[in-house]
């Protein structure tokens, strides 16, 4: 019956992206094309350990991918997975499209009814 839900919402994905520090990390990774807990930690008011923890959460839901670099891991954003998260909010928007279409139909029906009444 549903026509607009292409895939189920992934709770873990949404809560991963829901945290402001993690969104900032994604912003930095996108802007710089990648980074390590050390390089990212220098640009954020949190410890390197906290950055590493947040990166781990992003990694678990597939929003970032890690490759070993020396003693550290270098992260970059998985754009396909990020696009998927964005698409899920778009589906919230499409729910509003439907509501607004209903508002339009109701208001226009009321208006037509009032106009008919005035003409008769």
């Amino acid at each position, binding site marked *: 019956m549903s026509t607009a839900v292409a895939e189920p919402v992934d*709770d873990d994905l949404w809560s991963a992206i829901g945290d402001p520090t993690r*969104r900032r990390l994604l912003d930095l990774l996108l802007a710089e094309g990648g980074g390590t807990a050390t390089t990212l930690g220098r640009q954020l008011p949190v410890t390197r350990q906290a950055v590493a923890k947040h990166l781990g959460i992003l990694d678990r839901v597939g929003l970032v991918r890690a490759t070993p670099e020396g003693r550290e891991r270098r992260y970059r954003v998985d754009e396909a997975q990020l696009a998927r998260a964005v698409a899920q909010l778009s589906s919230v928007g499409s*729910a*509003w499209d439907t*509501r607004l279409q209903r508002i*339009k139909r109701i208001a226009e029906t009321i208006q037509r009814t009032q106009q008919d009444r005035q003409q008769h």
Partner: protein
Amino acid sequence: MELEAKEFGTIEREIYVEAPPEVVFDVVSSPDHLKEWWPDDARYDPTPGSTGEIVFGERDADGTVMQFTVVDVRPPRTFSFRWTHPAGEAAAAGNSLLVTFELTPSGGGTLLRMTESGFREMGWEVAVLEQQYQDHVTGWDFYLPRLAPCAEKLEARA
């Protein structure tokens, strides 16, 4: 792809309605009309600061009751409310989504603009909740209104 450029914390939509602002204002603000286009039941007084609730499904049988607080009422130009805050808490930024309708006279009708914000502050869980109610609004009447030739759907600011 710039994450900041894609501000997906806010949903914005515009639609042209062939009815004057007074009529459209009544449809977006009165509880009787609200339940025609959104929840199954709506109980609130459309005056600023008043609190109430909207219900999806049957109130007494697995239905979901959501808190609803009217924020601003300026007929026929502005109607805004907050929803999804926990019962017993005052609605505020951080615990609820803010929905604002702005009406502008245009031609013989009304340009209706809707914004819903607060997804970032809410930690996104509520967006999941919205998704659950998609079934509720995308039923048999999903396609019919789209046939209206004058219906114009503007893209959300990407």
